């Protein structure tokens, strides 16, 4: 393949087209540049003949063309399918990101150098799959590659689409892609939102499945070992019992009246990756740590006391997100979140406090999840800025 110099840009048509032509080096003009008069024919709407009406009932009984993300029905006990989303993730990952998407996106702009290096090292013309792309921070980072992003949050995907990226709403645990199509895949700060080891493994298998033989996969996840240890004290540790059994619909304990612990945790939007923090951090104190121990340990108490579990074995957490009131009003989702007990108000900070579920990874855990894969090998592993990272290469189709 020819070495290219950034001549493949996939942004808003007229804007990027012009930029492309301006930056196109002379020597490449004859192969890369199509520079017609710009503005006049960038967009043309073509109405295609549709063979079927919008609401044709099809064999599967599906007649609704609207966004069809379903809310869980009233089902007892666990689903045997690893692909079925646990309630814990629906409440404390999916709904939270949908509610905070624009605010979250505004804090996600710094490109992590290690990810940039990986993407820029890919051969020109590569098809790169970003599973759990969030606000699309990495989409298009290498202008010589074509990026396809997916995320489970329609709100985040909308932000990506508004920026001109090619994206879809999908589940990282069950990617809707054909096997072996991509040239590379990335999963940046995603797998730590999956609440069971089986699901985390499945997501890794999916990443490997969708790339070609020889294709590379970069995975990064939050580490137990955070560089800023005071950060961890701002998180709410969850008991493993709570997480493992949390599969049924409805949560009486999430609806409990405001737990003193959550109110007293100082706010932060830090994620251990050195992102720009808008609010200042408060230092942890002994008093604060005491307040994490609930006075009455009810049977289904979700927080652990300091005595129950050494903090360095603890891997399940709720990490707070403070959504400023003016942002919360705009999104509209917060009213119902507050009513459902999914979020709480912090008048002092003027913010609605959401909790995001995380399973943070211990040293070697990410690699252990890949040890029984027979179609991929680890080609690199490293720790960087409080994240564990791994690069896999697919070894057989």
């Amino acid at each position, binding site marked *: *393949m020819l070495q290219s110099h950034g*001549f*493949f*840009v996939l942004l808003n*048509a007229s804007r*990027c*087209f012009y930029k*492309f032509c301006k930056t196109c080096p002379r020597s490449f003009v004859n*192969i*890369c*540049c*199509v520079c*017609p008069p710009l503005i006049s024919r*960038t*967009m*043309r*709407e*073509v*109405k*295609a*003949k*549709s063979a079927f009406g919008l609401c044709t009932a*099809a*064999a*599967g009984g599906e007649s*609704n*063309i*609207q*966004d*069809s*993300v*379903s809310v*869980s029905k009233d*089902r007892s006990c666990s689903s045997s*399918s690893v*692909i*079925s989303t646990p309630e814990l993730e629906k409440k404390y990952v999916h709904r939270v990101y949908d509610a905070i998407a624009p605010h979250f996106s505004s804090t996600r702009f710094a490109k992590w150098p290690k990810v940039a290096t990986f993407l820029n090292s890919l051969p*020109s*013309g*590569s*098809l790169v799959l970003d599973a759990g792309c969030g606000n699309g921070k990495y989409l298009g980072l290498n202008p010589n590659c*074509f990026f*396809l992003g*997916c995320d*489970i949050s*329609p709100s985040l*995907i*909308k932000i990506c*689409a508004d920026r001109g990226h*090619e994206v*879809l*709403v*999908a*589940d990282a645990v*069950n990617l*809707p*892609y*054909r096997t072996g*199509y991509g*040239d590379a895949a990335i999963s940046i700060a995603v797998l730590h939102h999956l609440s069971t080891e089986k699901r985390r493994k499945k997501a890794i298998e999916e990443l490997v499945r969708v790339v070609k033989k020889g294709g590379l996969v970069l995975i990064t996840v939050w580490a137990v070992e955070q560089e800023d240890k005071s950060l961890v004290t701002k998180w709410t540790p969850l008991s493993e019992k709570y997480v493992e059994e949390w599969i049924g619909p409805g949560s009486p304990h999430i609806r409990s009246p405001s737990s003193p612990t959550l109110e007293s945790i100082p706010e932060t939007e830090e994620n251990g990756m050195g992102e720009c923090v808008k609010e200042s951090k408060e230092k942890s104190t002994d008093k604060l740590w005491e307040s994490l121990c609930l006075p009455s340990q009810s049977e289904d108490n979700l927080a652990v006391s300091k005595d129950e579990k050494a903090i360095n074995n603890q891997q399940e957490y709720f990490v707070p997100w403070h959504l400023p009131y003016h942002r919360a009003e705009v999104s509209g989702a917060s009213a119902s979140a507050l009513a459902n007990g999914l979020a709480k108000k912090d008048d002092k900070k003027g913010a609605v406090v959401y909790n995001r579920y995380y399973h943070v990874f211990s040293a070697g855990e990410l690699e252990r999840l890949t040890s029984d894969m027979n179609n991929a090998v680890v080609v690199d592993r490293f720790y960087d800025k409080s994240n564990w990272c791994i690069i896999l290469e697919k070894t057989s189709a």
Partner: protein
Amino acid sequence: MRLLTHNMLSSNIRGVTNGIPLRIEAEKVIEKQVGFNPDFLKNMFSKIEWKALVDASRSLGYSELPEEAPESSSVESEEFLRKFHHALLELHLDEGALVCPETGRKFPVNKGIPNMLLHEDEV
């Protein structure tokens, strides 16, 4: 949604053995020009399921692609590459649906974004 994307999508409903290609129901199609990159096109040519691309482009109103899968030497023809480029990257399904070939289940496409999430009973 571009046809490049469509070409790699598969219905992943539980029990479905042949989830490709998804049939397109087009309600609104948009064209957006984008930079021509022969390297990328040549890379993609080797991956593309040709018949799926031809059928998809026709459902979006474009019939310039040859019905039969072209020889690999076709990628040396700029005329061919430009048609391939146009179909693959410049046609967008803005509103419509992608239909599972086995179950008929429709995955909606709104504002160019396909929603491939499954319902509880499909996993």
